């Protein structure tokens, strides 16, 4: 067991974690933040994407101990003061989700991507989200939702 301190969605947490525990399980089972989903065991699907120190990371690729001292944002922390983040609102407005399982990871990846590339082409959006899989939408409306935020 190792002692870690992490700030998640603005709240500081201290915990003893098993060295082998993945960050995503610490968030889900340790902190009860179940909005971040697990969709695979090979870091392929991106359902567990969160922000670590402001950048998107698949939370199954980090051990909880590696997050010691870091600032984390999950889907639960994206809305501010009860106001949806524009990306969340755009996913609803553009029907960018169906079953919703990939959605938290997709939204976290998309917000991070737009920070890097605020005016992307359709092709750039598709490549920017290539680490995130969706089985419901065929990506059509996801791409549309991201483009709508970019074009403000």
């Amino acid at each position, binding site marked *: 067991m190792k002692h870690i301190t992490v700030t998640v969605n603005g709240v500081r947490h201290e915990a003893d974690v098993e060295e082998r525990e993945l960050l995503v399980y610490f968030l889900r089972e340790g902190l009860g933040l179940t909005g971040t989903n697990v969709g695979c065991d090979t870091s392929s699907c991106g359902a567990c994407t969160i922000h670590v120190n402001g950048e998107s990371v698949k939370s199954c690729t980090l051990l909880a101990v590696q997050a010691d001292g870091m600032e984390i944002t999950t889907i639960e922390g994206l809305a501010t003061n009860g106001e949806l983040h524009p990306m969340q609102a755009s996913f609803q407005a553009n029907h960018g989700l169906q079953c919703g399982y990939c959605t938290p990871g997709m939204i976290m990846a998309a917000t991070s991507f737009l920070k890097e590339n605020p005016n992307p082409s359709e092709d750039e959006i598709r490549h920017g989200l290539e680490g995130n899989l969706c089985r419901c939408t065929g990506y*059509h*409306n996801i791409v549309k939702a991201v483009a709508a935020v970019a074009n403000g």
Partner: protein
Amino acid sequence: MATTEQPAANIGARRPRKEDPELITGKSRYVDDISIPGMLWMYVVRSPFAHANVRGIDTSAAEQAPGVVGVFTADTLELGALVMAWPINDECKAPPHLPLQKDKVRYVGDPVAVVVAETRVQAKDAAEMVSVDWDPLPAVTDIKAALAPDAPKLYDDLESNDAGSWIFERDSPAPRRAATAPFFDDPDLVKIKEEYYLARLIPNAMEPRGVVVDVNSAMGEYTMYSATQIPHILRTGMAITCGIPEAKLRVIAPDVGGAFGSKLEMYPEEALVLGLAKHLGRPVKWTEERSEGYVATLHGREMYQQIELAATKEGDLKAVRVKLWASMGAYMRLITPGIPMLGAWLYAGVYDPEAYDFEYTNVFTNNTFTDAYRGAGRPEATYAIERSMDALARELGMDPVELRRRNMIDESKFPNYTIVSGLTVDNGNYRGTLDKCLEVLDYDRFRAEQKARRESGSTKVLGVGFSTWLEMCGLAPSRVLAALKYIAGGWDAATIEFMPTGTVRVLTGVSPHGQGEVTTFAQIAADQLGVEFEDVEVLHGDTGVVPLGMDTYGSRGLAVGGVALWKAGEKIIEKARTIAAHELECSEDDLEFSGGNFTVKGTDRSANIKALAFNAWSAHNIPDGMEPGLTANHLYDPPNFSWPNGAHACVVEVDTETGSIDVKRYIAVDDCGVRINPMVVEGQVHGGVAQGIAEALFEEARYDEEGNLLHGTMTTYMVPGPPELPSFELDHTVTPSPTNPMGVKGVGEAGTIAAPPAVINAVVDALAHLGVTNVERPATPERVWNAIQEAKR
């Protein structure tokens, strides 16, 4: 006749979904999000061999591991066989499928034991300490090899791996128009024979499966949370398998993260978790790992197809004859034997030949069991006829569009036309739909561009492929199901309850998991009852809340469940009318109902349905003998299937030097009847087409000779990401179904049914000038390149 939609306030409106707020903020609740105090975790010990005898299982070391509560095998956890609901005929071989295997395993992943521990990690760690004494046997995973006389047999008690055939002439309750033999014997007709192999597919819903069972030992009551499409059907099946009174079992499908047929099942793990909760008297949970799911969750499609067409030299299609050999995998699961039959009436597509023959043979192989995957039987049928129509066009030297148009069922025959396979199609305008598709595509311009590209000598050539398709969904009329030997009915249920405050609660027996019925059903109820969309709550997926239902599969949500809702609405309006007449002291015939108000004709005297609902609840002043309350329910058994159709076109660019394919355009013109929420309909088509394109170009689950799954993780099985797919160009026609009062059809499987032949036809069209006539799917760059090299020889 094509008609234009008349959007009312809600029906026809692109309403943002009621489902979304929780899903976009992380407040959703999927099964793996559920935790119950005192809950134990299950981990499954699976076979690493495709075929082996089990000499013994030593659980002693695992039992001593930290946190372990128990290790169980078939000897120590008694459970009945899993329910198989579709014994297609007397020939059908379906040996009992037990949740844990005792003496023999038949696929990699076959469960033999379970470990139960205090934590997820402890259960998994201890599972590695279970020692099984295996005696490996030769395995067979290819369908044709499994039928060879000397093939390894999966079931010692059976004569062979042949699980029985279904022959149209003998087994179809609807007779076909005529037998095909005279046409294939006619020397004046042109005949073609095509053979296709449809690769095995893995559904890949983004949410892996999971089960949690809570237990109230004192009452003998169980609550199962499962990532399932079928909470109602599952309750019945699990009660049987686990020996629990059905009335003591509540099944809840909470938020479910996609399914595509993969959660239309009764799985070993569901029975195991419930059985363990019963045995141990404690809550138990299991969450599937993705790689585990690749062998433990059902697969789809795999079959060999042989299709023959006979036509005149002018291109009039006369006869269609089909034989299939389908892989069951190792066990008959819920509806495995009947999946190919779901296409049995559709191998002539939208065309109108004179004769039809069809048969299929089911074959056991040492793979994961197959069962329903999005479209189930109908993508297979559409693939065979739409690929072979292109082959016939090549044989006749005709344009594939003209051949299709010439043979389409004439629109004057609708509504209710009995097609060559003997079923009655509700409505369609196939040529009108095709025309719209050609217009969006700009077909003539494409052909000119294709020609110019070829003449330029470019190594990047263009091709277009069409799929003009028809499907039957909205499963299904119960009497037809009876005739097909399916053991349950095909009805669905809806209840509408006006609350005292005037808001409306809708209970539906369908179990959406992404399809959006919480929104679309609220749109229907709001318009029909004249209440606000915001005032309608739709509840589903919990047998404790919605007692009756047949759940979600086969594009039946709207076409069956939605119509049940409409019919319940008609009943509630009639009851409200009686109360209104009583209050307004007039005859019921004098009342007009519109926008929620009953108005005495020719006056301004009226009563609103919300006020009537309060009065019905208080029961202070309702007609003598009337039951209080304003509620109604309806069980709707559809009189016919629903028959969506469409015309899809795919444009590809193929690099003849590398074999790589770029999908440049995908055009989908669909006719699903009246559309309740066009935005939701489009979403269904997008996702279906994406899966269909993936089926054609990317996805396959192959096995090696020992029966190991070669595409056994998400890194090797190619689920397409955003860069692999284009944006889609959608349009639609609307021919309302005369079967139901709303004129609706289904749409959930349309894209998946339509897309694969459009894509492969496009690839073949691009390479036709090189002599390529077929590319096996998925058309990977390697297969395309090889097809080009072979054609050159």
